[in-house]
């Protein structure tokens, strides 16, 4: 049956509307759980608040377990899902740049917009910085193009590249997540309490 839109259960024309609704819900939950605070986001790097790690790890886990159960029961076809294409070096370099920006600015692109919405000035500066970055990238596109378009590996998943059984991977992944949560709790207990 699923995914709903590619199989025509929901007409394609609805996808922007659905995207807006999901976006609003996502933004609301981000803001409500305090993710529009750069201190909370940066906390994961300084070891006093691991909410980001826990939330995103849990989200990934719940989603992946849910998707594979739905696939097993025949409600969703995993092979039809969108898999983001891998441009190896583009992803690595981009990831490093984004990581530096994350530590320095205390936002990721999504949460920065969330913080702009509630009127945080640092977030506005951050978004301005993103725009400048976009401008520089587009102006120097011909220079970056070989990296941006190169090292293309197709729409691969860990299942393809490691040849691992997805069910076992999900199981191992959830154990890693739980271990990470326990360790992060231990780290944040040792850290001096910071109020923010």
């Amino acid at each position, binding site marked *: 049956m699923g995914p709903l839109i*590619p199989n025509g259960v929901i007409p394609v024309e609805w996808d922007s509307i659905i995207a807006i609704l999901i976006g609003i819900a996502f933004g609301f939950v981000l803001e409500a759980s305090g993710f529009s605070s750069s201190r909370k986001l940066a906390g994961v790097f300084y070891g006093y608040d691991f909410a980001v790690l826990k939330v995103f790890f849990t989200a990934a886990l719940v989603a992946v377990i849910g998707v594979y159960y739905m696939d097993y029961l025949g409600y969703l076809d995993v092979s*039809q899902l969108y898999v983001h294409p891998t441009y190896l070096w583009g992803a690595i370099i981009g990831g490093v740049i984004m990581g530096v920006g994350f530590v320095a600015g205390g936002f990721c692109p999504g949460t920065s917009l969330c913080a702009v919405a509630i009127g945080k000035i640092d977030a506005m500066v951050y978004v301005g910085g993103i725009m400048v970055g976009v401008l520089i990238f587009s102006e120097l596109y011909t220079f970056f193009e070989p990296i941006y378009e190169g090292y293309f590996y197709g729409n691969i998943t860990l299942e393809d590249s490691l040849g691992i059984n997805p069910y076992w991977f999900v*199981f191992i992944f959830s154990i890693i997540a739980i271990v990470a*949560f326990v360790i992060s709790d231990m780290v944040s207990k040792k850290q001096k309490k910071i109020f923010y």
Partner: protein
Amino acid sequence: MVKNKIAKVLNFRYIILAAILILLAGGLVLLPKYQKHEGIKPQELLSNVISSERYITTDKLSEKLIYRDPSFILIDVRDEKSYENYSLPNAINIPLEKLLDEDSRAYLNQSQFDVVLFSNDHFYADQAWILCDRLGFKNIRVLKGGLNLWFTTIINPEEPSQSMPAEEFDLYSTRKAASMYFGVVYPEQAQMVESETKIEAPKRVITVQKKKKRAAEGGC
């Protein structure tokens, strides 16, 4: 009291949630695996196969062709050479091995037209029908007896003997008329036909709307 108990349980809430996640993930590993079927259920396929509704007779097909019924498309599942040699008017050639190609699917998996599959006998057409039916394609039929029966009933109908019932004679005259439509000339009409210019059915252009089935796209 009750509140205290709840509070006690809630103290372990993260451990409980972690345990649920691990259990669910472990469940995925332990679940018995099964071969997934693409398309309709085997039981459904079986009942469709047994039903003779999938057949269309040569008489019905000739009637549809003569009245230029626009609601169906003919698909020849024989190889290309046989198709070049002879085929029904306005038939599209999709050899059996190319049946499930992306281009062919546009003709088969749609709800605009009825599809009539045919081959020399209905043997290959039946195979094609089963492949299509299993994938859940709708409105697919098979020409019973295929081109061979088409020849013996429509193109060259057998004259009934004198002792046969009147219906046979009616059927014969209908088939004879149909064969004339498809270009057969009978001796008793040879003189009349001479002056007539042969009217050829215009080549029908069949456009099939592609079913919208896009690959999922997008991302973060």
